[in-house]
């Protein structure tokens, strides 16, 4: 990525429906209402096992959201620090931040999850949930770092110069002038990362965190309704991410212009 083309990389969120994009908009409608229709149809025609699955997983939905929200919170903090590090003029700070991004991006999230759990586990007994949130935060912190960096760099140099010439120091300039403008650029990709993260939390089920997927597996292995259970799980994920992607698209629209 060259320094003058400001582009915020989309990792693995969801297709965000934008107004210009009529095709996607109707694809969104089709998927969303289609999913709802299929769910309704299955519940009505075969309440056993579909209704039983649906009653079994809600605690899992809650856990999925818990992991997602806590991980995004820490990832935002890490991301801000990393983004600032990546644009720092201090070459050591810069190197540390860039290396973190490089390393984290080079390791699959699933491996990071195991790694944090078992590596930390050698020294302390980490609860699964904490290990999961830690690994996801560290991983997404690196992505967020890039989002923050791009967002900060999207603000014209003139803004920094105007603030500095008034007498603001670097930190004041960043927090009073640059970041309050950059969040308009930052928020939509953060929303997108949120969706990506939510989907990736399905990986934490492997650490026995009782998220949606884990709850589904528990149900399936007791009832042997594997196909039916995973159909329902897939539909639940789909509906959640479609709702969230709609939210992100609304946010993008509202943020796209100044008052």
């Amino acid at each position: 990525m060259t320094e003058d083309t400001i582009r915020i990389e989309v990792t693995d969120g969801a297709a965000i429906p934008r107004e210009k994009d009529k095709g996607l908009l109707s694809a969104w409608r089709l998927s969303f209402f289609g999913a709802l229709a299929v769910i309704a149809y299955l519940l009505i025609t075969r309440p056993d096992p579909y209704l039983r699955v649906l009653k079994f997983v809600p605690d899992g939905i809650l856990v999925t959201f818990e992991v997602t929200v806590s991980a995004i919170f820490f990832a935002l903090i890490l991301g801000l620090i990393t983004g600032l590090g990546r644009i720092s003029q201090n070459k050591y700070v810069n190197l540390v931040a860039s290396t973190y991004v490089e390393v984290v991006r080079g390791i699959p999230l699933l491996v990071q999850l195991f790694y944090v759990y078992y590596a930390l586990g050698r020294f302390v007994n980490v609860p699964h949930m904490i290990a999961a949130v830690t690994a996801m935060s560290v991983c997404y912190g690196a992505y967020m770092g890039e989002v923050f960096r791009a967002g900060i760099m999207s603000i014209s140099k003139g803004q920094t110069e105007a603030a500095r010439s008034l007498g603001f120091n670097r930190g004041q300039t960043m927090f009073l002038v640059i970041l309050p403008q950059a969040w308009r650029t930052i928020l939509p990709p953060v929303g997108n990362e949120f969706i990506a993260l939510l989907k990736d939390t399905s990986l934490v089920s492997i650490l026995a965190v009782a998220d949606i997927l884990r709850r589904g597996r528990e149900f399936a292995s007791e009832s042997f309704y594997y196909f039916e259970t995973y159909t329902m799980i897939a539909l639940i994920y789909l509906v959640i991410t479609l709702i969230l992607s709609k939210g992100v698209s609304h946010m993008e629209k509202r943020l796209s212009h100044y008052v």
Partner: protein
Amino acid sequence: MSDAPIITIRNIYKFFGPLKALDNVTLDIRSGEKVVIIGPSGSGKSTLLRSINRLEEIDQGSIVVDGFDLNDRTNDINAIRQELGMVFQSFNLFPHKTVLENLTLAPIKLKKIPKAEAEATAMKLLDRVGIKEKATVYPSRLSGGQQQRVAIARALAMNPKIMLFDEPTSALDPEMIGEVLDVMKSLARDGMTMVVVTHEMGFAREVADRVIFMDAGQIIESGTPEHFFKAPEHDRTKLFLSQIL
């Protein structure tokens, strides 16, 4: 106008890679003096102006502003910059703040002036630049000329001793240039020390105590507007003036 220089620039050099943007520039500016810098594109006018508040760091030489040596790292550059208002070609208002907030942000955060007082001062300044009625709108709602007048007022809100202008009217539609120059002229009449990079020769003639012609990073010629526009000495100055007038 007092005789003691408020800005002392001694033998400064500035390089951008192999390019010598400032080449042994020496210049004194007295308190209350109005200096207009002219010269062709790329001659180093902005670089000179920006090195006065250290937006560009010089590679050699010294600049002393109001007794503070810019090379001396024990001096707080942020405090020195509060004495130096700067107006940019591209206005650079803060788009996420209203006009009034643009003016009060620095006084409140840096000078710890109570909000009500900062706002009262800001309203006076907005009145002075003729756009009091726009206090509550966002900069994007203003014309270029209005934005630049707000930018001048924003700089004045810190009560600086010196004002630096880098081509303040170059980005404006012709019909808006006058309103900005009028504000600058009134500032000049009030005795502000001003360093102005501009192509507005009418302004130079009317306001400048001294005109400085730069080319290739050097000050080629310096003198009163009369000297400049009637009898410039150097060929490069003559050529430049013949092209621009």
